[in-house]
């Protein structure tokens, strides 16, 4: 479970103060698939970064998996990210000089798993994303859709509680986007909680719940898109 209560985030530069999030409150339950929509600059990525412990909130309460993360030091946050969160990025963020196998291996090594366990996990997730035969390929030898699948495999390999995706299909054509969405739905079906930022209403619809962000706040007005059936 993930809970935010009045979370704020202020970016300060010499001249400007940007309130990227203000009184941002939200709860995501175990097993949910939540889509986050909103105009550009509304704070979606900021929300995801705070949720994923990539950035610290300026104020408010954030509990991840029942634990208040305020006051954790950098190493503790790193470890928590590594164990509980899987990231999927718009531009895939694969490491270009590592092959598919080694890319999926990255978070597993930080986790400290032994070689046998890592191999077994890598093979399993590559199987899930359908790229078992490409483990020796470099990212540059794969299509965008395949690269994003590798990134999903990498995010999944450590069995995270949460999968956080920032515009995961933003760099893909609609066909590839579709298959990535299918994969995410499948993964969610297997129990992983997913929070996905997107500006594609059609993709957002495929989540169980949509959160609309405007000016750094969860928008309570007229829902712009139809919500999928609510789960308990």
């Amino acid at each position, binding site marked *: 479970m993930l809970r935010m209560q009045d979370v704020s985030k202020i970016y300060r530069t010499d001249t400007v103060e940007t309130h990227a999030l203000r009184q941002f409150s939200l709860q995501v339950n175990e097993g949910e698939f939540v889509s986050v929509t909103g105009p550009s600059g509304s704070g979606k990525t900021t929300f*995801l970064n705070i949720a994923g412990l990539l950035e610290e909130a300026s104020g408010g309460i954030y509990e991840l998996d029942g634990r208040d993360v305020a006051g954790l030091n950098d*190493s503790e946050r*790193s470890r928590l990210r590594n164990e509980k969160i899987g990231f999927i990025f718009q531009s895939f963020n694969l490491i270009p*000089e*590592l092959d598919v196998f*080694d890319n999926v291996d990255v*978070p597993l090594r930080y986790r400290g798993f032994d070689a046998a366990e890592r191999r077994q996990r890598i093979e399993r997730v590559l199987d899930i994303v359908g790229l078992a035969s490409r483990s020796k390929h470099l990212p540059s030898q794969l299509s965008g859709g395949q690269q994003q699948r590798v990134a999903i495999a990498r995010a999944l390999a450590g069995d995270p509680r949460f999968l956080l995706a920032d515009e995961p299909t933003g760099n893909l054509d609609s066909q590839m986007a579709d298959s990535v969405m299918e994969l995410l739905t499948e993964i969610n079906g297997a129990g992983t909680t997913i929070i996905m930022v997107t500006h594609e209403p059609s993709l957002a619809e495929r989540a169980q719940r949509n959160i609309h962000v405007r000016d750094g706040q969860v928008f309570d007005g007229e829902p712009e898109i139809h919500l999928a059936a609510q789960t308990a």
Partner: protein
Amino acid sequence: MEFGPIWRALQRNKTSYVLIALQIAVTMAIMVNAINIIQERSEQMARPSGVDEANIFYLTSNIFDPEADVEAQIASDLDAMRNFPGVVDAIASNSVPLSGSGWSEGIRLEPDPNLESTGIGVFFADDHGINTFGLNLVAGRNFDPAEITWHDYESDTWPPLAIMTRAMVEELWPDEPYENAVGKTVFVHRTKPVQIIGVTERMQAAWNSWSGVERSMLVPEWRGSSFSRYVIRTEPGRRDEVMPQLEEMLAARFDNRIVRSVRTMEETRERSYLLDSSMVSILTFIVIVLTAITGLGIVGLASFSVARRTKQIGTRRALGATRPAILRYFMLENFLISTVGVVGGAIIAVGLNMWMVEAFGLQRIAWYLIPGAMLTLWFVGQVAVLGPARRATTVPPALATRSV
């Protein structure tokens, strides 16, 4: 731990790293061989001459009056010098060790000119020779005053006695203890017999780069011509004070000659090894500069490599890398590059040395220079990469989502 993926990543970016590894290798090869030369030169420079260097000086007395009684004048000079305050002893000789110019002869065990001879440096001296040079007589005896001859230029004579260095007699009779040389007769000037009456521990000849520099002998003769060289030993610490006084005294004694070329033994050593000591300085400078350049090269490459990979670093942080893990990554990466460099460097260093042994008769490198240079360059690499690696740890994890 992470060696595998780091190594594979390096291999996919070979071109940028091969050059720095090569630079490390070349630096190491030059470092090892330069140090080898420095060691060899330093060892040569460290050899003692066998004489009391700190307290000896010498000068020339040049008599321009053709009517002068040279023998009487030398005897009188020696007497005056030996009684001069602060002087321990003095002789008239032809040369001093390491001066670069001297007299050499060939010694044979039989009076047969067809036999190979052993080269030896010659110092003419009287019974004060051992004391003036401060030599250590380890066997036999000194010359007796009655055994000193005045060299007659008309006749082809050679004094029948000699005191040789231990190195010389051991060269002549390698299988015998040096003491046994006392009493033996050898031949100089093809057929002239010379009996060895004493052995000194050490006295270098005039030429520091001669392989026989440790072989020399004292010959009981005054070879005064119009030109003579006086060697003077002072009481410890009084050399600089005595030198000008004695020069003045000699100049005042006779007005038929010129006293000049006053020089200390220490100065002579310095001049003798000038080339070697400048070589040592230059090579030391080269090694330091080269190592510094390589260190800076590593800093540059690592900075570039960190800058090029900021997004990747952010991604790694997002995936759970702690700051120490990022630091470790770049340190390990540098360690691997350096390892390739120093292993290549070891091979080039040995090859270069083998060539220099062959071409210039240089000594073999001491075994410890290779691991020593490897450790040094590993260390230099780790220090050089520390700055860029620490900068890498400051890349925020949020960069993963913020950069495109």
